Structure formats: C-alpha cells, structure tokens
C-alpha cells in the first residue's frame, strides 16, 4: 500500500502512497524489499498520492534505489508537493555512501588481558615519575618555605581527619566487638577468657586498626581527591593554575599529601581506642570481664611496640593513598566519564597498595624481630 510499481509507456513509475514517516518505516522498508525492482533501470517517482514524507523515509527509498544500481541521474520525480520535493532534494544531495556496519569493539580475552597488563605497567611508571615530581617540589619547598599553603593544608586536614572520625570510630568499635567475641568463644572453652585481652590488644593496635582506617580513608578521601582534582581538570582550572605561574603540585597535591600524612596516624590512634573499647564491651557482655580488669590486663600484656608499629605504618599508607589519588585526578581527560573511571581506579589501587604494603610490613618487621 506504500508503493506501487507500474509500467507507463515503457517507463517504470513508482507511485508513493500515504504517510512516509519514521513511524511507518518498518512496513515501508519490508514492502520496498518485496517489490524486487529491476536493477540498473530508470525510474520516475510519482508523488501525487503521497501524504507526508520525512527524511528517514526519503533516505530509505533513495538508499534502496541506489542499492539496485540506480544513481541520481536515473531517478526522476513528478507531481510532488513543492515542500516534499524540496525535502527529497535535500536528502538526495546530502546522501553519501551508506556506512559499513559498525566495527565491533569487542576484543578477545587474551588481547584484553594484554592491553590491561600494558596499561597497568604504564600506570606504575607514571606513578613513579609523579613521585619524582613531588620530591622536586618538596625540595623547592624546603628552600622556600613560604611556598607552603598552610590554609589549604589545614582545610584539607579538617576534611580528611576531623570529618572522618565518626566513621573510623564506628568501624573500629564494631571490629573490636567482633574480634573479642570470636576470641572469647574459643578462649572460653579452655577457661582462658582473660587472654581475650591479649588478642584484642595486639590484633587491633598492630594490624586491624591501621589497615581498616587506611581502607576507609582510601575510599573516603582518596576518592574525594581524585574527584576534586579531576573536576578541576575538566573545568581547565588546573591549566589556569599553571598559567598563573603556580605549580599544580604545590597548590593541589602537597597540601593534600601533608594533610593526609598527618591525619592518618591520628585516625589510627583513634581507631585503636575505639577498637579496644569495642573489645571491652564485648568482653564485659560475653565473658563477664570487668572493664577495669580488661584495662589492667592490657597494661600488663600489650607491648608499646604494637601501638608504635601500627601508628608507624599509617604515614606510609597515607603517602601512597595521596600520591595515587592526586595522580589519578591529574590524569583525568576533559570529559565527565573519565572522572568517574579514575575515581573508581583510585579506590581500587589505594586499597590494593595498602594491603600489599601491610603484607610487606608484617614480614619485614617479623624478620627484624620488632
């Protein structure tokens, strides 16, 4: 019903009928296919019965004719309303060879693995170069301490330290409860409930508080650093900083690095306190150990080194988190999507590197007998 093919005086005429609109394109296209028009033949398009025509339908018709070998000179028109004729003319003048099917962007498993490996290796190289850059800027800072941005650093410190205290306290308190509870179940069987204190003190102070706090901070502040700097990159603020004769590393990176390095040991200490508080709560409730007894026992058995080792690891974690997060922020390209991608990548990289560092610390310190 959309198109009729007739032979008039030996010439092929195609009568277009009805509303040739995008909404009807599917039946129109099916009918075009079923006409099985002869190849390389001249046609006259008749528009006298045509109600409407839009570019999608006109294009589909022209493309079909072109595929049957009819170039523009072989297709004439007659009896079209002026507006539709104009539209058909526009479509024919703008039409080019139809695009080949979109190339598939899917790669094989092996090549994806390879690409990912190369990208990761390049990322590590970039991070190393960035550490060198920060070292140079820190040396410049040592020569000219006036370059240090105290206000920015303090503001960052407030963000990464003070504002993080509630979540750090909650997480470590709960972990303290869990550790004490699980240890208590075991220790009770031997009637050695009091040894829960030894276990909780050591586990929280030496391992759990540093690593948990670092993971929380990586997710909280690491992601924030990348997103902040990335958004500035998108808005060309980073270029503006450079143009004003300032160093983005001095302005953006060093304040964050210093703030985080100062904040993380403090957060770990707070984590220690709340973790032990969690242990006290669980021990009192489950084993009936009085808080006073718990603290007394803790004094006797918890070596100072457990606390110092735990807190001592924190600045190292902090430096890694800050360097990775700032670097990923500066690597953002000028579109919104890469901010999201880099932020995700920051969190993953930070958490993995914190765990790797912690493993290295555990083995090394054990060997050194600390």
């Amino acid at each position, binding site marked *: 019903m959309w198109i009729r093919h007739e032979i008039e005086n030996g010439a092929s005429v195609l009568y277009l009928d009805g509303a040739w609109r995008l909404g009807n394109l*599917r039946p129109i296209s099916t009918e075009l296919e079923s006409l099985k028009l002869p190849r390389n033949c001249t046609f006259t398009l008749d528009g006298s019965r045509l109600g409407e025509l*839009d*570019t999608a339908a006109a*294009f589909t018709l022209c*493309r079909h004719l072109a595929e049957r070998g009819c170039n523009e000179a072989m297709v004439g028109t007659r009896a079209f309303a002026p507006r539709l004729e104009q*539209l058909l003319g*526009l479509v024919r003048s*703008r*039409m080019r060879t139809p*695009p080949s099917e979109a190339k598939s962007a899917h790669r094989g498993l092996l090549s994806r693995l390879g690409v990912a490996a190369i990208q990761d290796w390049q990322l590590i190289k970039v991070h190393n170069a960035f550490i060198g850059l920060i070292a140079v800027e820190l040396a410049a800072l040592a020569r000219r301490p006036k370059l240090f941005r105290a206000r920015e650093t303090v503001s960052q410190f407030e963000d990464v330290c003070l504002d993080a205290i509630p979540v750090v306290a909650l997480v470590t308190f709960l972990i303290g409860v869990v550790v004490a509870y699980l240890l208590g179940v075991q220790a009770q069987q031997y009637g050695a409930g009091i040894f829960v204190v030894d276990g909780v003190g050591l586990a929280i102070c030496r391992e759990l508080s540093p690593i948990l706090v670092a993971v929380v901070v990586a997710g909280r502040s690491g992601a924030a650093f990348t997103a902040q700097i990335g958004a500035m990159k998108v808005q060309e603020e980073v270029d503006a900083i450079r143009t004003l004769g300032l160093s983005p590393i001095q302005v953006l990176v060093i304040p964050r690095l210093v703030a985080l390095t100062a904040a993380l040991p403090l957060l770990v200490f707070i984590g220690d306190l709340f973790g032990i508080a969690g242990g006290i709560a669980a021990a009192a409730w489950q084993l009936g150990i009085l808080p006073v007894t718990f603290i007394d026992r803790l004094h006797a058995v918890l070596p100072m080194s457990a606390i110092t080792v735990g807190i001592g690891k924190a600045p190292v974690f902090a430096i890694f988190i800050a360097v990775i997060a700032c670097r990923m922020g500066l690597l953002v390209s000028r579109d919104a999507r890469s901010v999201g991608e880099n932020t995700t990548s920051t969190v993953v990289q930070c958490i993995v590197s914190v765990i790797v560092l912690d493993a290295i610390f555990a083995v090394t310190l054990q060997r050194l007998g600390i």
Partner: protein
Amino acid sequence: MGEPVLRFDSVVTRFETTMVHEGVTFSVARGEIVALIGASGTGKSVLVKEAIGLLRPASGKIELLGTDVCRAGSREMNALRRRFGMLFQDGALFSSLTVAENVAVPFREHTDLPDALIAPLVGFKLSLVGLDVEAGARAPAELSGGMRKRVALARALALEPEMLFLDEPTSGLDPVNARAFDDLVRVLRDGLGLTVFMVTHDLDTLSIVDRVVVLSAGKVIADGPLAEVRSMQDPWILEYFSTRD
C-alpha cells in the same frame, strides 16, 4: 505565517526571591526561525527549558505544538518530546557512547526499527548535518566544538521533529564554522519545514532569522523582524547593535 506552534502567555518565573520573568508573552509560528536575545542573566535559557518542560514557571501558560506544557502529564509530555528536538549549549552528548551510538539513542528508545535499518539512518543523519560517516566511530571527547554541535543536532533531528530548540548554537565556534552552522539551520528549515526557536548572542546568526524577540528586565521589550528591532530606541538594543557598526 501559519498557526503558532509555541506560545508563551504572561509567563512569570521566580528563583527563591529573584524575579526572572515578569510576564513574558510572545509566540512562534510554524516554519519560522525566531531568535531570543537579551543580556546575560535575563533568563533566556530558562525560558527554553520551561518551553520543553524541564523547568516550571511560577505562573502563566506555555503551549508547545498544541500541548499545555505546564499542565501536561508525564504520558502527554513523553508524546510531545518525540515531536521536538533540543540542542544543548555544549552538545550534551553522552560521553560513554560513540558518536553513532549517540545519534542512534532516539531510534533505539522510541522506534521499533531493526539495527539493519538504524545503522544507515544514523549515517545519513550524520551526513545531513555535514559530518563524515567515519566520525561515527569516534568518542565525543575526541571531537571539536563544532563537530560536537553537529552531532548533537543530528541527535536532535533523529525523530524528525517539527520543532527545534537551539541554545546558543554558535557559541564557542569560530566565525567560519558558526556561519556554516547558521546555513545548515536555514537549509534544514527550508528543506524539512522545521520551526526553529533559538537563544543566541551572535549578531551574525540574526541574519538567518525571521523574527527577533528581545528580553530585558523580565519582559519582552521588542518583537519583530531584525530591521524593525534594530531601529528601536531602547538603550540596551542600541548598545547591542552598536557593538557591530
């Protein structure tokens, strides 16, 4: 000209305590190209967003293609959305999709066409706005500002709209590209019978429009063909056009 397809009737807009529009009234007829000009901050883009239902005026009536935008329900609005296209200021292309996928989005969401039909249509829409078909495989982030606008125009034109809204169509383009874009808009209007309503700062773009509407201090202070508006004795209009002479 024909019947009005877009009508603003004493539209009042307020943000918190600031008055943006204090009774804006004008209309756009079918097949016209109308430009809205005015100083920065007079709420030109706000007016466009109200026309397409992204924002709601405090009072007044806006009628687009026979639908009262302020009172239309979500189903009515969705039907209306297929009948107009909007070109946002910076293109607003989806950055996670390629150029071709961006243009294909309206086809995929609003038609039941098979992929075998959509792919050539997307290619045609790109060449309709003067882009190479090869550009289809690229990511929006790799494109220049002018190309981004053309892709956005191709996406806006995908569903054969009757009405096209343009927000600062030539901002950020060099003069050559800007004129080429103006010509494109006019060719499309003539060929497709589109109605075009645009917000612009570009004096040169005004040469392709049929009518200019001037917004100042929350009201329409002039509405007419370019020559008529040009000769008006309003301080802002005088200053605006004197930046050229």
